[in-house]
């Protein structure tokens, strides 16, 4: 039972409780009804309502003494016929909308018992409208009409109810409070069985509804401004305004209140109003009307005028006008309490204002809008789209009616394609929860059934990759008006630049820019860009390791798009498809970037990544976008034959890490898996040979291919936590990237193969499969083992053996870093590793404590714990290798 209201007797409470019980039972029973059931009932109700439209209008006028019979009849027709036209084909039971391409379905759930207030101004039409909405949506309604419109409302509800029940609706689906009082309303608004309050009424009723703590639909008051701009079709505008403002004697709250008229047309407009039956008041009449129809205490209209004829109002105020006068026009000079007729007037008194300019007109419309009408309705007459746009942006109104009557326009479905309604949402400006024309969807809880969708995946690589010994000769296929070779001084001394130059088409103008052999700095890149500009370059040949190729990628970006802000482009992101920052769009005359790698590790010749050092700010900037990928990659082993042993080992393990991390990444796909697996196979087979026999051409060639193939995989599947750890550790202790990766790798394999503390959200993964993918790698390498766990252990052991063979230190401790120093660094290391975007594609989400544990495992050295429990996947990844 609701909170007991002091002024209600026990009998009255029992009476109200009985109404609630009936409605609650009906609402519950109604949930069993089908779409066919409700559509059948709605049609019967609509026909019954149409048949009684005039009788109900007559009853309303007799009881309320407001409005015009003919207009109220039309309103009753609109509330039935037009509303039916809108709802007839709309699903409202079960599935109401489907979006198969988005995997979304909307399912309707009735609200239950609605408590609904009905107004004095539009009593029967609003009752008819709400009854139809309720049945269409399988809700029950307990009505409380305005006390001075109770009988006509009750009759409208009775007609609807009898038609509904006759055609199968549950008994008690509509009930109506007899002789309702404010305490009745307060009691019901707080009743726990009332699920929604739909308050169409005065500001007090709406405020009470929203104050109840219940979900509520409340409509606010209006004060519709109209801008009559000089380009408007005046004859049409004036007829529309008179039609609207006199409709039902102005009782619709969306009707025009003040017309702001451009100076140039002001006099003509007033003459036309007068010609069509309006009386233009002089200053004395205006002042008199203002005192009589607006309460100076409150600033609101007096009830005596609401819904009355113009001539009757004039007579009551002591003005002498012809009895057939349609409208009283009252010129005003401003807005606010000192200009009483600038307030809302639900009767045929229309204020006018002469505006000297568009700006003044818009300002006055805003003032009117904010003088009691925010969120409601506004009207503009103009043939200038720019004026209409400005007006729409300036005015806070849920309905901005263009070149048509405000009141009938706002009702929807007659002059425009808005939803037909008798309840205008006024948004937060009017203290409401919606700006919509209230309709059947506001009477439903709409449930979204969201099916799992798979994110679109991709496999993006450079257009052309040339590989094997002397692949550089393919440069002859790329003519250029002006080429530049970006390289480093060592490679230039080694004669590699000459080899490249010789391979270019004859007479290609080519220049050489040798940059330091280190991760590129901003300064170096900008010097390179200047060289590109000076030489009007159309082809860049990057000859070098990752640093040189990365520098060339950024030079190309800045050369083609000088406006590109590297700082902004480096902003972190979670999903490349949804990143905040967009890279410059493709150029009409792009520069060709050809990348020739001289190390077998980073794979930068095919990746969409580039790293830049910002020395001034002491930070490293990572850029990632497929527009950075080189256009052509040349993987020619002649450039790596003389790589030193240490570099061979470090870059080779970097390549292995790329392949293994791409293999277990949450972005892995059958396309990346094939590359990842092949790269792993090549590394295990050829890296030891290349390390121990540097002159072995086949081993060098295969390792060079392996680096590129692994890069194809991680360019599309990304890397994982191993790289996050290595980036943090390498930067802090000055350890080469490949070596840092190597120190982490066995520990990370064991870590990823065990049951995650936290799974990584990923719609493309249907089960946790990292351990199975490692096992598949073990199978590929022929390592043996019967179970997944055994195979993972074999892979860890094989990786350790490979590292031993490459003479990679067994632990961070072996690098000469003391335990104390490492412990001191740990807070920074763990923080930086956790901030590193690399792990965002790792199969398990690392906790900071786990990152710390991994760092310490790597510090202590290679004796990783055997993988703990192994997850048995429910469903293997479709199309993956397991």
């Amino acid at each position: 039972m609701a909170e007991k209201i002091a002024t209600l007797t026990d009998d009255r409470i029992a009476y109200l409780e009985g109404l609630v019980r009936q409605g609650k039972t009906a609402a519950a029973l109604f949930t069993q009804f089908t779409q066919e059931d409700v559509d059948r009932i709605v049609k019967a109700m609509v026909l019954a309502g149409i048949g009684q439209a005039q009788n109900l209008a007559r009853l309303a006028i007799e009881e309320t003494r407001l409005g015009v019979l003919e207009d109220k009849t039309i309103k009753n027709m609109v509330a039935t016929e037009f509303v039916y036209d809108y709802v007839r084909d709309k699903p409202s039971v079960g599935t109401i909308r489907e979006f198969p391409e988005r995997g979304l379905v909307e399912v309707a759930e009735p609200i239950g018992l609605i408590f609904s207030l009905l107004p004095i101004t539009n009593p029967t039409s609003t009752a008819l409208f709400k009854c139809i909405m309720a049945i269409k949506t399988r809700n029950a309604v307990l009505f409380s009409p305005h006390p001075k419109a109770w009988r006509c409302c009750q009759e409208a509800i009775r007609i609807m109810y009898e038609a509904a029940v006759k055609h199968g609706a549950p008994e008690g689906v509509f009930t109506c409070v007899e002789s309702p009082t404010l305490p009745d309303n307060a009691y019901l608004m707080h009743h726990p069985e009332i699920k929604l309050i739909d308050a169409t009424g005065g500001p007090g009723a709406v405020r009470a509804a929203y104050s109840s703590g219940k979900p509520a639909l409340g409509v606010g008051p209006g004060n519709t401004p109209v801008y009559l701009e000089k380009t408007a079709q005046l004859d049409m505008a004036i007829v529309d305004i008179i039609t609207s403002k006199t409709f039902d004697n102005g009782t619709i709250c969306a009707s025009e209140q003040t017309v702001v008229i451009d100076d140039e047309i002001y006099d003509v407009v007033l003459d036309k109003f007068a010609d069509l039956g309006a009386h233009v008041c002089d200053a004395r009449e205006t002042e008199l009307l203002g005192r009589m129809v607006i309460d100076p205490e409150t600033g609101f209209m007096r009830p005596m005028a609401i819904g009355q004829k113009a001539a009757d109002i004039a007579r009551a105020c002591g003005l002498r006008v012809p009895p057939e006068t349609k409208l009283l026009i009252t010129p005003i000079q401003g807005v606010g309490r000192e200009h009483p007729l600038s307030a809302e007037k639900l009767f045929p008194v229309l204020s006018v204002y002469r505006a000297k300019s568009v700006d003044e007109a818009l300002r006055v419309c805003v003032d009117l809008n904010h003088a009691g009408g925010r969120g409601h309705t506004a009207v503009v007459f103009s043939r200038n789209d720019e004026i209409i746009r400005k007006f729409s942006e300036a005015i806070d109104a849920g309905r901005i009616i263009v070149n048509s009557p405000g009141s009938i326009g706002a009702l929807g479905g007659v002059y425009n394609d808005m939803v037909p309604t008798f309840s205008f949402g006024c948004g937060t400006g009017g203290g409401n929860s919606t700006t919509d024309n209230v309709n059947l969807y506001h009477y439903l809880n709409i449930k979204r059934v969201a099916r799992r969708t798979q994110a679109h995946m991709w496999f993006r690589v450079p257009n052309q990759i040339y590989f094997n010994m002397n692949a550089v000769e393919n440069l002859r296929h790329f003519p250029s008006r002006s080429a530049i070779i970006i390289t480093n001084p060592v490679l230039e001394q080694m004669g590699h630049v000459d080899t490249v130059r010789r391979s270019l088409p004859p007479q290609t103008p080519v220049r050489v820019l040798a940059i330091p052999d280190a991760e590129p700095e901003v300064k170096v890149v900008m010097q390179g860009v200047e060289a590109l500009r000076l030489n009007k370059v159309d082809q860049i040949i990057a000859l070098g390791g990752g640093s040189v190729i990365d520098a060339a990628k950024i030079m190309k970006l800045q050369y083609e798009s000088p406006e590109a802000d590297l700082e902004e482009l480096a902003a972190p992101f979670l999903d490349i498809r949804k990143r905040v920052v967009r890279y410059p769009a493709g150029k009409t005359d792009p520069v060709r970037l050809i990348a020739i790698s001289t190390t077998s590790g980073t794979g930068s010749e095919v990746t969409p990544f580039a790293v830049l050092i910002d020395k001034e700010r002491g930070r490293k900037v990572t850029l990632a976008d497929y527009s950075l990928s080189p256009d052509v990659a040349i993987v020619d082993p002649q450039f790596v034959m003389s790589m030193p042993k240490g570099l061979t080992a470090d870059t080779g393990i970097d390549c292995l890490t790329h392949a293994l991390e791409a293999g277990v990444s949450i972005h892995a796909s059958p396309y990346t898996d094939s590359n990842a697996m092949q790269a792993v196979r090549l590394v295990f087979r050829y890296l030891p040979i290349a390390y121990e026999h540097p002159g072995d051409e086949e081993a060098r060639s295969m390792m060079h291919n392996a680096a590129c193939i692994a890069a194809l995989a991680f360019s599309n599947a990304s890397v994982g936590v191993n790289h996050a750890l290595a980036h943090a550790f390498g930067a802090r202790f000055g350890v080469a990237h490949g070596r840092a990766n190597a120190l982490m790798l066995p520990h990370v394999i064991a870590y990823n193969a065990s049951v995650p503390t936290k799974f990584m959200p990923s719609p493309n993964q249907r089960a946790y499969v990292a351990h199975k993918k490692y096992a598949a790698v073990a199978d590929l390498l022929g390592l043996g083992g019967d179970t997944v766990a055994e195979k993972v252990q074999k892979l860890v052991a094989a990786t350790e053996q490979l590292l031993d063979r490459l003479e990679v230190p067994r632990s961070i401790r072996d690098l000469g870093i003391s335990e104390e120093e490492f412990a001191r660094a740990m807070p920074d290391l763990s923080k930086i590793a956790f901030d590193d975007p690399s792990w965002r594609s790792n199969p398990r989400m690392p906790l900071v404590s786990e990152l710390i544990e991994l760092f310490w495992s790597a510090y202590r050295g290679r004796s990783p714990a055997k993988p703990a429990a192994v997850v048995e996947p429910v469903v293997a990844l479709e199309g993956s290798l397991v």
Partner: protein
Amino acid sequence: MTRITIDRNAWLSEALAKVEASGEVALDFSAVRRIDASVIAGLEKLADTAESKSVQVGLHGVNVDVYKVLKLLKLAQRFSFAGDKIASGT
């Protein structure tokens, strides 16, 4: 336990009589697609009586639409929904 099917007019009087005699009752709803206000009123009365006699009334074969109505009216909690199969006989 007495089995009573809800497709006969006399289901309520039969069920009430049995409950009055402190006998357990199982109401078979398997043929019921939709219920109306009279069934609700009957179930309320039956629940009142059963509670006063400390007798359990089981509803069987209740489809989800009907169950939802009972749930909304807080009637579901007054009955048991042990299973959809009812042992035959009394």
